[in-house]
C-alpha cells in the first residue's frame, strides 16, 4: 500500500529523493575536498562520478510499483488539458466519433438481441426445428405427420428430447369483446424440453393429451395480466373458446413465449385417424440434440427414417425427406442478411469517422511538432511519446463513445418503436450492459485505430530536424509531402467508404420506391380490409351443416355491412390481400394442358362474388363468380392469365377443366373454367405474377374469411362504424386486422422501408463526415502552402491557375476514392442483391448519380479553401515566415 500512498504524496517523495541524492553529492565533495582537491575540482569530480541526476531519478521513479498507473494518470491529465485547450477540436472530434460509435452500438445491440443471443429457452443452442419435404411441394417446408414424429422420437438416437405442436387460433368469448387467441397445441414433453415453468398452477402433462380427458388450458403471462387482471383465482375457472369450455390449470412463467406470440397452450390430442394419416403434415417438431451431437448426424438419421417410410408407404413419392434447421435460424430466417448489411453500413460509418479523426489529428500533430520534439530532446522516450499520443486519442474516443452510448440508446428505442410488428424477436431488443461493453470496446479500438499513425509519426520525430524546422524555411518539405500523402490516402479511404454507403442506400431506396409504386394490378384506394375469423369446423360433427351455417352467417354479416352509409360494395377472399399468404396446391390435373410436366402447382384462392369487379381486376374472358355458384351448382373455377398461358398457352380456355382433389373413390372432381382474369399482385407486391386459380367461396372455402369493402368516403373513417354494425347483429363475431389497403401496402414493405431509412441515415452521416474530412485536409494543405502560393502569385500565377492547382490536388484523392468505392460497391452487390427489388445491384444510374454527387460536393469542399488561396496577398504570405 506503500506505493499507493506515495502516489498521493508525490510531491513529498520527490523532495526526499532529491535531498537524498544531493546529500550524497555533497558528502562526496566534502570528502574530495578533504583529500586535498581544490574546491572547484572537488565539486567537478563529484558531479562527474555521480552522473546525471535526472536519469537516476527517472529510473527510480519507473522502478516503483504503481509507476505505470502514475504515468497513465499523468498522460491522462496532460491529454485532458490538451483537449480542454482545443475545445472546438475536441467537440468536433467527439461528435464525429459519437456518430460512428453510436450507429455501430445501436445496430450491434439489435443484432446481438436478434441473431447472436441464444433464444431464451433451456439449451436452446441444441434445438432444431424439423420439417418434411415432398416432391409434390418441392419449394415448401411442411410440418411432420404424427407417425413420422413418433418414428423420429423412437429411432433418431442423436435426439435427446422432442416435442410436437401446431399453432392455431381460437375465439375467446367471455367478458368484453370477443378476441382471437394465438394458441399452440402441444404434445407431451413440450414444456420440459423448453425448460418452462408455471407461475400459477401447473403446465400440461402427458395425461392431458390422452383422448377423453377434459379440456384444459394454460395461459401465458401477458394474457393472464391483460385479460384476467393477474387474478390468482383463475385456476379452475373455465373459459369459452370457439364455444367450447376449457378449464384453466395454470399460468406459464413470465417471458415464456414459445412459439413466438402464443397466448395460451392446449394439449395436442389427435384423433386416431389423424394419428395414422401419413400426409397429415401439420406438426411442428422441436428436437433437442444430445450434448455434443452434430446436426449432420441427425440429418443422416432422418434420411434413413425417410427411406424406410417411403418403402413402407408407397403413396409417398420419391423425394420424401426431412430436414433439420437450428431453431434460432428458423426463427430469425432471412432477416439475418438484412441485419448484417446494416451492421456493415454502421461499420463503414465508424471507419469513416476514424479516418476523419486520423486526418484531423495528423493535421494537428504537425502543428505540435515542436512540442513533441522538445519533449523528445528533454529525454522522453519514443515509447512514452507514442503512449502519450494513444492515451490522448483513446480519451477522445471514450468521450465520443460516451456520447455514442446515448445516441445508441435513443436509436434502439426508436428502432423498437418503428420496426414492423412482425420483426422476429423484436421485444427481446433492449438496452442492456452489452451495449455499454460494446461501445467501450469499440471506442478503445477506434482510439487506437485513428491514433496510432499520428502518434507513431509524432514519436518518430527527429528532435533536431523538428526544432530546426520551426525556425527554418522549408526544411521539413520531405516530411510535409509524406504527411499530405497520408492525408490524401485517408481522404481516398473516406470517399470510397462513403461511396459504398451512398450506392447501398440509393439501391435500397429505389427498392422501396419500386415496391411502393409497383402497380399491384388492382385499385388500392378506398379499400378497407379486415378478417372475420371463423371457428374451425368440428371434424367429429356434421361438416356440411356447419359449412351451411357458417356461410349463412357470413351472408348476414355482408348484408349488415352494406347497410353502413358510405359503403359501396363488399366482397371477400380466404386470405388477406397482400398478406403474402396463399394456399399452394400441387398435383393439379389439367384438362388438355400443353405441358406434360408432372409437377403442377398453383396458388389457390377462394373468393366471394364480385371480388374482381370490386378490386378492379379486369375480366379477360368469361364471367366472374355470382351468388349462384354455390355447392349445389356445377363446380367452377377462374384462372389468371399467367395460369392460362402456362397450362394452355392461350387465354381462350373457357370450358377447360381442372381437378385439384378426388372424391372418396379416387375419381377426380372436375371444376370447369368459366373465366380468365388479368394478373394482379394481390398476394405479395414483390412476387411476379404466377399461376393462380380462383374458386367460389360459396362452393367450399376453408373457414377463413377476409372481407374487402369498397367505400365511397374515407375508408379509415368507416372502420369503427363497420365493426359496430357487425357487433350489433353478431355480438360474438371477432373482427381483426382492420386496415386500409394503402395501409396494408405500406405495412407489407415495412421491413424494406425501415432498412432503407437506416441506410439513408448512415449514408448521410458517412457522406457528411467524409466531406468534413476532405475539407479539413484541403484547407489544411492550403494553409500550409500559403507561402508557396504567395510566391507563385508574386511570380505571376493568375488566381484561376491557383484555383486549378488546389482543385487538382484536392480532387485527385476523391477520384481515386470514387474508383475504389465503385469497385467495392460492385463486388458487394452480390451481398445485397437478395434484398433488392426492381433494381440491379450494379445499376449504372445509381453509380453515376453517386459519382456526380460526390464530385459536386467535393468540388464545393475544395472551393472554399481554394478561394482563400486565390486571395492570398503575396506580401503577407512572404512575410508569414
Amino acid at each position, binding site marked *: 500500500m*506503500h*506505493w499507493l500512498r506515495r502516489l498521493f504524496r508525490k510531491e513529498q517523495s520527490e523532495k*526526499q529523493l532529491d*535531498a*537524498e*541524492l544531493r*546529500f*550524497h553529492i*555533497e*558528502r*562526496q565533495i*566534502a570528502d574530495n575536498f578533504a583529500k586535498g582537491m581544490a574546491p572547484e575540482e572537488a565539486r567537478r569530480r563529484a558531479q562527474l*562520478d*555521480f*552522473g546525471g541526476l535526472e*536519469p*537516476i531519478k527517472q*529510473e*527510480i521513479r519507473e*522502478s*516503483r*510499483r504503481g509507476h505505470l498507473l502514475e504515468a497513465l494518470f499523468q498522460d491522462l491529465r496532460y491529454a485532458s488539458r490538451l483537449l480542454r485547450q482545443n475545445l472546438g477540436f475536441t467537440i468536433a472530434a467527439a461528435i464525429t466519433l459519437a456518430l460512428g460509435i453510436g450507429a455501430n452500438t445501436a445496430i450491434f445491440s439489435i443484432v446481438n438481441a436478434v441473431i447472436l443471443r441464444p433464444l431464451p429457452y433451456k439449451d436452446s443452442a441444441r434445438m432444431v426445428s424439423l420439417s418434411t419435404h415432398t416432391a409434390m411441394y418441392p419449394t415448401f417446408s411442411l410440418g411432420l405427420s404424427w407417425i413420422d414424429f413418433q418414428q423420429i422420437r423412437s429411432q433418431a438416437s442423436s435426439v435427446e428430447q422432442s416435442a410436437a405442436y401446431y399453432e392455431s387460433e381460437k375465439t375467446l368469448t367471455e367478458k368484453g369483446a370477443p378476441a382471437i387467441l394465438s394458441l399452440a397445441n402441444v404434445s407431451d414433453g413440450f414444456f420440459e424440453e423448453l425448460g418452462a415453468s408455471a407461475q400459477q398452477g401447473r403446465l400440461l402433462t402427458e395425461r392431458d393429451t390422452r383422448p377423453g380427458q377434459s379440456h384444459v388450458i394454460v395461459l401465458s403471462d401477458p394474457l393472464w395480466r391483460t385479460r384476467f387482471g393477474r387474478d390468482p383465482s383463475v385456476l379452475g375457472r373455465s373459459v369459452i373458446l370457439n364455444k367450447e369450455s376449457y378449464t384453466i390449470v395454470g399460468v406459464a412463467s413470465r417471458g415464456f413465449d414459445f412459439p413466438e406470440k402464443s397466448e395460451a397452450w392446449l394439449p395436442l390430442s389427435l384423433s386416431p385417424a389423424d394419428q395414422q394419416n401419413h400426409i397429415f403434415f401439420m406438426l411442428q417438431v422441436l428436437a433437442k440434440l444430445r450434448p455434443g451431437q452434430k446436426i449432420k448426424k441427425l440429418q443422416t438419421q432422418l434420411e434413413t427414417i425417410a427411406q424406410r417410410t417411403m418403402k413402407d408407404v408407397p403413396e409417398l413419392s420419391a423425394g420424401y425427406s426431412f430436414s433439420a434447421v437450428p431453431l434460432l435460424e428458423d426463427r430469425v430466417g432471412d432477416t439475418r442478411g438484412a441485419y448484417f448489411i446494416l451492421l456493415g453500413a454502421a461499420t463503414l460509418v465508424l471507419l469513416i469517422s476514424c479516418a476523419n479523426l486520423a486526418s484531423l489529428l495528423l493535421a494537428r500533430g504537425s502543428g505540435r511538432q515542436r512540442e513533441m520534439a522538445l519533449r523528445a530532446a528533454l529525454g522522453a522516450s519514443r515509447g512514452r511519446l507514442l503512449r502519450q499520443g494513444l492515451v490522448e486519442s483513446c480519451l477522445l474516443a471514450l468521450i465520443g463513445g460516451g456520447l455514442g452510448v446515448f445516441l445508441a440508446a435513443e436509436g434502439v428505442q426508436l428502432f423498437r418503436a418503428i420496426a414492423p410488428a412482425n420483426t422476429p424477436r423484436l421485444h427481446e431488443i433492449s438496452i442492456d450492459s452489452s451495449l455499454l461493453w460494446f461501445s467501450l470496446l469499440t471506442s478503445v479500438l477506434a482510439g487506437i485505430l485513428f491514433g496510432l499513425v499520428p502518434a507513431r509519426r509524432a514519436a518518430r520525430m527527429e528532435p533536431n530536424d523538428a526544432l530546426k524546422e520551426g525556425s527554418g524555411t522549408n526544411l521539413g518539405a520531405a516530411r510535409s509531402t509524406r504527411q499530405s500523402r497520408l492525408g490524401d490516402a485517408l481522404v481516398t479511404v473516406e470517399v470510397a467508404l462513403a461511396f459504398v454507403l451512398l450506392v447501398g442506400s440509393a439501391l435500397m431506396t429505389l427498392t422501396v420506391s419500386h415496391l411502393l409504386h409497383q402497380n399491384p394490378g388492382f385499385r388500392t384506394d378506398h379499400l378497407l380490409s379486415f378478417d372475420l375469423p371463423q371457428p374451425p369446423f368440428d371434424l367429429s360433427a356434421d361438416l356440411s351443416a356447419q359449412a351451411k351455417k357458417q356461410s349463412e352467417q357470413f351472408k348476414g354479416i355482408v348484408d349488415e355491412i352494406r347497410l353502413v352509409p358510405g359503403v359501396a360494395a363488399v366482397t371477400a377472399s380466404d386470405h388477406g390481400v397482400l398478406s403474402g399468404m396463399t394456399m399452394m396446391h400441387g398435383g393439379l390435373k389439367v384438362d388438355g394442358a400443353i405441358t406434360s410436366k408432372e409437377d403442377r402447382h398453383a396458388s389457390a384462392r377462394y373468393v366471394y362474388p364480385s371480388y374482381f369487379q370490386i378490386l378492379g381486376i379486369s375480366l379477360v374472358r368469361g364471367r366472374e363468380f355470382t351468388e349462384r355458384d354455390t355447392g349445389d351448382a356445377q363446380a367452377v373455377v377462374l384462372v389468371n392469365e399467367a395460369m392460362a398461358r402456362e397450362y394452355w398457352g392461350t387465354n381462350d380456355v373457357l370450358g377447360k377443366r381442372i381437378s385439384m382433389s378426388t372424391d372418396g373413390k379416387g375419381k377426380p372432381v372436375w371444376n370447369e373454367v368459366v373465366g380468365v382474369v388479368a394478373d394482379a399482385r394481390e398476394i405479395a407486391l414483390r412476387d411476379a405474377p404466377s399461376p393462380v386459380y380462383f374458386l367460389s367461396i360459396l362452393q367450399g372455402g376453408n373457414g377463413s374469411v377476409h372481407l374487402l369493402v369498397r367505400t365511397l368516403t374515407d375508408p379509415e373513417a368507416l372502420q369503427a362504424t363497420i365493426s359496430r354494425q357487425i357487433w350489433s347483429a353478431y355480438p360474438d363475431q371477432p373482427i381483426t386486422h382492420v386496415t386500409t389497403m394503402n395501409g396494408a401496402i405500406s405495412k407489407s414493405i415495412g421491413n424494406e422501408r425501415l432498412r432503407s431509412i437506416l441506410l439513408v441515415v448512415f449514408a448521410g452521416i458517412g457522406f457528411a463526415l467524409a466531406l468534413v474530412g476532405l475539407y479539413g485536409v484541403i484547407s489544411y494543405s492550403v494553409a500550409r502552402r500559403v507561402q508557396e502560393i504567395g510566391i507563385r502569385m508574386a511570380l505571376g500565377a493568375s488566381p484561376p491557375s491557383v484555383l486549378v492547382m488546389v482543385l487538382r490536388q484536392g480532387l485527385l484523392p476523391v477520384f481515386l476514392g470514387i474508383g475504389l468505392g465503385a469497385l467495392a460497391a460492385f463486388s458487394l452487390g452480390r451481398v445485397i442483391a437478395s434484398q433488392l427489388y426492381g433494381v440491379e445491384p450494379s445499376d449504372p444510374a445509381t453509380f453515376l448519380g453517386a459519382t456526380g454527387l460526390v464530385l459536386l460536393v467535393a468540388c464545393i469542399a475544395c472551393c472554399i479553401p481554394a478561394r482563400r488561396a486565390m486571395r492570398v496577398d503575396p506580401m503577407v504570405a512572404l512575410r508569414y515566415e
Partner: protein
Amino acid sequence: MAQEKSEFLKGTLDMLVLKVVALGPIHGYAISQRIQQISKEFFQVPQGSLYPALHRLEDRGWLSADWRESETGRDAKFYTLTRKGRKQLETELVYWERLSDAVALILRAAE
C-alpha cells in the same frame, strides 16, 4: 582497470547492500563508501545503480528508511534491514555460497 572495478554480477549488488545495511542503520553515501572499503577498492558502486537498488529494496519491504541526523549534523536518509530483509539476506547468502562452491569445484576440476 576502472572498467573491471565497476562490474557487478547481476543480483550481487542487492546482496552486498543488504549485507552492509545488516550491520546497522546507514545512509546511501556510507553504503557506497563501505562497499568500496571492504572490497579493498575492488568494487566501486556506481550511484546510477546504487540508488535505484536501494529504492527497489525499500519498495519490496526488505529495507526500511527514515531521516535522521548524520555524523556531519545534516539530515540523511538512513536505511535499516527489516525482518523480511534479514530472511532474504540469509537465503541469498546460502545461495551465494552454493554458487561459489560450485564455481570453485568446476574451476578446480578443469585444472
